[in-house]
């Protein structure tokens, strides 16, 4: 069997205090869209940061393409894993083209100029996110949806085989949410591995091949959306009553209210 792109192997992590993630294991494969779900503070973003090598696990290890993430330099790691962070706010006076081109940083040395390969990767990312007409603008002049698409293009330009997306749809209107998710799925179908923190059950079941449900830093469920996103699981993890309905080949969850304690 093919080696997993990303292996999280018995990982624990805490910010100095009690563990935010405990003994967590999962794998993500080539061509897979894995959604990470869970209530606020369950450790979703922390898990993404551990995979990205920003947080060093206190126990266990993370492998990217079979190599321990903590043994790779930042540059080598960036060539394997690209991350759309939640916080990133590029400076308003940077041009969109400058920002997207920066996605190639890990492929350039201190003295080298932009290579033809860099140009091609940037052009491809720009086409993928359909931001051609924004290239000449300043970042500060973009709307929230435009900015997120441009940031996504920057991350795609990195050309890494794994994409980590931390709440990529937050603050976007519905159309742009689907735009980002469509792009993420295209990337997965093209052979990349996508791990995305999402909030919406329906979007997760529409787009994800598998869902990892986190609860208080532990894995509460891992499997296809149908296996994991059950009324019982959602009630247990989120404390919310829902009714699942099947339509268009996907499972929709209608929230009904807080679950009985």
């Amino acid at each position: 069997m093919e080696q997993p792109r990303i292996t999280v192997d018995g990982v624990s992590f805490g910010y100095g205090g009690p563990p935010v993630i405990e003994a967590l294991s999962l794998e993500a494969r080539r061509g897979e869209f894995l959604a990470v779900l869970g209530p606020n503070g369950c450790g979703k973003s922390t898990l993404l940061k551990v995979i990205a090598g920003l947080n060093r696990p206190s126990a266990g290890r993370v492998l990217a393409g079979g190599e321990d993430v903590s043994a790779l330099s930042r540059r080598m790691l960036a060539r394997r894993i690209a991350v759309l962070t939640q916080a990133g706010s590029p400076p308003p006076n940077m041009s969109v083209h400058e920002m997207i081109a920066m996605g190639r940083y890990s492929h350039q040395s201190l003295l080298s100029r932009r290579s033809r390969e860099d140009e091609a990767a940037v052009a491809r990312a720009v086409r993928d996110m359909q931001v051609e007409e924004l290239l000449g603008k300043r970042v500060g002049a973009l709307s929230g949806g435009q900015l997120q698409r441009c940031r996504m293009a920057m991350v795609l330009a990195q050309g890494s085989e794994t994409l980590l997306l931390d709440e990529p749809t937050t603050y976007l209107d519905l159309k742009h949410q689907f735009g980002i998710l469509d792009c993420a799925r295209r990337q997965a179908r093209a052979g990349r591995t996508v791990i995305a923190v999402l909030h919406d059950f329906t979007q997760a079941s529409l787009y994800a091949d598998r869902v990892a449900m986190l609860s208080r830093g532990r894995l509460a469920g891992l499997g296809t959306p149908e296996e994991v996103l059950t009324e019982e699981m959602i009630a247990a993890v989120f404390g919310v009553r829902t009714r699942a309905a099947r339509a268009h080949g996907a499972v929709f969850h209608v929230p009904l209210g807080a679950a009985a304690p």
Partner: protein
Amino acid sequence: MTIAGPLLIAALLAVSVLHLASGAMPVPPGEVIAALFSYDSGNFSHVIVVKQRLTRLAVALYCGGALAVSGLLMQRVFRNGLVSPSTLGVNSGATAFVVLSVFFLGASGGALFLPALAGALLALALTFATAGLLRGQGDPRLNLVLAGSMVGVLFSSATTLVLSFDPDRFENVISWLIGDIGNFDYRELRLMAPLGAVAMAAALAVCRAIDLLALGDEQAAVMGGHVRLIAGSALGVALILSVSAVVVVGPIGFVGLILPHATRLIAGEFGRGPLLFCAGGGALAVTAADLAARTMAAPKVLNVGSVMGLAGGAAFLVLVLATARRVAR
């Protein structure tokens, strides 16, 4: 950088020729060019232009460029438009340690670079420690500059104290202290310029990495940037540049503060262009200030530090007010 670059180069050339031409004995520009390209050691005005004014011009160009780039790097690393070698206390720290090592160790010339660098580092550390005490109160960017000015005053007082012990011994030091370009400064310049050239090359090399930091520490890290290494080396380069300038000409304030702002307005912020533009702009500013210092009250010669201080102090006030307004809004 479209037309701004060529314009800057033209302005630099013009001011340089003017700088060489004017002084106690005016030399016509044509004669200046002749002195440069067909030097005649028997011609008195040629001797003045080359032996006296050219060395002075080189000092002004170098120190202006070095201080401006130093300020630009600091402002970009700290993402704070109010920091500079002078407002962080770096120049005062370097100055105090120079005076101390002249007094206690009898050091001189290029050997002063190491104590100056040590003083700059100490001042920077003190500034950050002091700003740390103010954490959680007010705007952190203003706090940093407030801490820097307190540390600056501290070191300036130490300097004055040491000078008062034995004023006679410090006759040479005094003109250096007020930022005067002396006739023999080129001797230090000869030692510092290669160092500055290496630092400038390093600044150009880390330019792209510094641009990456602008995306935020986390995004920069996942895109392949070693954030602490980038910030540390940029800051190291900035310190070497400003200290080398201080050793040559003394603490000239405000070049490192104002020029980065002018650069941002004219040449933008990202890529290597703005760095080069800032170097040229700093060189232009200090050369023009020195030209003004030597001609405004002729035949009396003022010193470039005071001219720069007066002009730059006013600009600093405007910057602080603008920042405070933005914070208040």
